[in-house]
């Protein structure tokens, strides 16, 4: 009997001691004392492969973090897979990451259609779909989708800001719009029209193009012929450069609004010709590393050093590379806040309790704020105007 009692007592002691240990460290699938598994889905191949660099720069960032000892002593295991920008593949890859690789959560899956395709699955599985890489508005819906969170300012908000600016400063404008015929272009368009409200009649012409088109020349000719004196340019970098140059060549000089997606000096304005871009108005929330005013900025210099050391193949002119760096830093903050409680629930909870958090690569005055009812971390942008050399900030930080 006595011999039996000892193991029982030992077992009892272990059971009683366990809750104390559990209170200190809590893990879900994908997290342990040694590592945190983070899933990521990127279009490394296919029509949007230019964005693939975001996944690479994020991987480089986590490599740097790991070399510096990881987060709270744990290494990040960043598992990034390719979906070729095709929703069925995204579903397959999300299931692979969650069910086979057993990641703690998926971070920065890219594309609106792709994230829509997996949103329901992620929420049924209760696996965080964190900081998705798309500017659509629908990611801020904590009531219906408590496991999905956006990150960047959404396109609609930005469109609304331009509309308000026009109503205030040019109430009799005749507006022409060029937009990409997909979710991104239409989201901007919707925000812009919502912002105009009852004054949508100010729009005299709207023309679309496809991402696969070779040029937008004919669209620009149509827009100029409409007699518009305001031009809202909703295009991705390549087309933005083409449109800016064409407007100049046609000697069409409208008040020109360029969406934030293409507000890069190095990859848009230089190819278009700097003198052709004078007077352009846009918005920003991250510093443009190709803008000379940031040459001596410590945060941008730190980013350049990081690029040289961890991602030497990366293009320093590509805005995606500083974007990926900034959002990776935001994730590092969330995981730091999680401490030793690495459950999926706590990851969402911490992501939803960012208070005035800043990564220094963001423009002055821009902050990340979230709460259980606010799943849109960055909701403010800065209006900027191009003076022929650099973007000049004007007015206050707009939005929330």
């Amino acid at each position: 009997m006595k011999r039996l009692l000892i193991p029982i007592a030992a077992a009892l002691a272990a059971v009683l001691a366990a809750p104390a240990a559990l209170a200190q460290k809590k893990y879900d699938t994908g997290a342990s004392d040694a590592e945190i598994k983070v899933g990521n889905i990127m279009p490394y191949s296919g029509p949007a492969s230019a964005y693939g660099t975001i996944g690479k720069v994020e991987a480089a960032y986590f490599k740097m973090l790991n070399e510096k000892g990881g987060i709270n002593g744990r290494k990040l295991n960043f598992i990034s897979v390719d979906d070729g920008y095709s929703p069925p593949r995204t579903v397959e890859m999300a299931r692979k990451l969650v069910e086979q690789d057993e990641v703690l959560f998926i971070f920065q899956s890219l594309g609106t259609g792709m994230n829509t395709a997996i949103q329901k699955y992620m929420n049924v599985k209760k696996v965080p779909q964190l900081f998705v890489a798309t500017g659509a508005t629908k990611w801020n819906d904590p009531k219906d989708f408590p496991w999905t969170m956006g990150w960047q300012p959404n396109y609609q908000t930005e469109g609304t800001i331009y509309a308000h600016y026009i109503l205030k400063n040019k109430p009799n404008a005749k507006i022409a719009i060029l937009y990409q015929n997909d979710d991104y272009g239409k989201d901007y368009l919707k925000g812009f029209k919502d912002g105009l409200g009852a004054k949508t009649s100010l729009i005299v012409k709207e023309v679309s193009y496809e991402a696969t088109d070779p040029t937008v020349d004919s669209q620009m000719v149509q827009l100029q012929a409409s007699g518009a004196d305001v031009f809202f340019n909703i295009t991705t970098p390549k087309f933005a450069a083409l449109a800016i140059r064409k407007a100049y060549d046609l000697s069409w000089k409208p008040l020109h609004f360029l969406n934030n997606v293409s507000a890069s000096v190095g990859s848009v304005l230089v190819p278009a010709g700097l003198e052709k871009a004078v007077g352009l108005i846009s918005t920003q929330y991250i510093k443009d590393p190709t803008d000379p005013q940031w040459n001596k900025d410590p945060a941008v210099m730190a980013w350049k050093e990081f690029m040289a050391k961890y991602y030497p193949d990366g293009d320093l002119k590509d805005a995606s590379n500083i974007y990926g760096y900034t959002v990776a830093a935001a994730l590092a903050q969330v995981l730091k806040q999680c401490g030793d409680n690495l459950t999926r629930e706590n990851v969402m909870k911490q992501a939803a309790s960012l208070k005035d958090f800043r990564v220094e690569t963001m423009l002055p005055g821009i902050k990340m704020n979230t709460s259980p009812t606010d799943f849109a971390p960055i909701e403010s942008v800065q209006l900027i105007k191009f003076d022929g050399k650099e973007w000049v900030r004007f007015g206050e930080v707009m939005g929330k």
Partner: protein
Amino acid sequence: MSKRQLILLLLVLAAACALPFFISNYRIFQFTLVLVYSIALLGLNMLTGYNGQISLGHGAFYAIGAYAAAILMDKAGMPYWATLPIAGAVCLVVGFLFGLPALRLEGLYLALATFALGVSLPQLLKYHHLEKWTGGVQGIVIPKPDPPAFLAELGLQLNQDRWLYFFTLAMTLLMFLLAWNMLRGRIGRAMIAIRDQHVAAEAMGINTAMVKSLTFGVSAMYMGVAGALGAIAVQFVGPDSFDIFLSIVFLVGIVVGGLASISGAVFGALFIQFVPNIADSISKAAPWAIFGVFMIGFVYLMPAGVAGAIRIAVARLERKRQN
């Protein structure tokens, strides 16, 4: 069908039924897609392999089937299984109508006409007057089907993934049976005759235009059923899901699997489902280059496709045994 073939088929079927009890849900999902693709490839193989017409735009019919199912479920609240025959019928009609004028075009010209269809469809799906139904660029999210209640009453506990797999397997068997029945009969012979000797076939009294249009229609119907099943499995349809690349991949699938072969459709489906994943795990920088290497390797080593290679290997073994 010989006795040995029948035994082999039953063995494969038994393996297919046992499979989902040994693998993870994620793998079950992948194999469900293999079944879906095999229906699609069978449809395309009828057209290209048996009838000798090249289509570069069959992904369009796959998309139409997928959208038909999604819209019926989303807007009309139809159960998922009821959408399949409708999706198939819609594609049969559209395919037949598209086939009528297009089949006056031969060879490369038909390939170009179908290519146009494949390229333009994703844009039509975004067309704003259709947005009410198609969801425009946002696409449509579909709920995942639950296993029917009677299975639970019979004491069979299946999760959603396994149920979907068995449902798709049953549909695949049905579609393969229909195809097998059609292709070995009078219509099948007429299709092959047109492929091999167009003029001779006509001289024998085959209404070539009608057979070709019907083949086009039936092959589109297979695509439509596959598209509907694929949409239910993926639970989402959107314009990005059905770009021209899908049509090309289907064509790759039937060539690698084996032209004019029913079993080739399954091999082709395995290829297009798993080889991109393998390629991705080998190189993140150039997955399609690796895919290309695989493709060239297959075509070089097995010029008649996987099914053809197996046929040749079996024939050789037979000869050896007889000697």
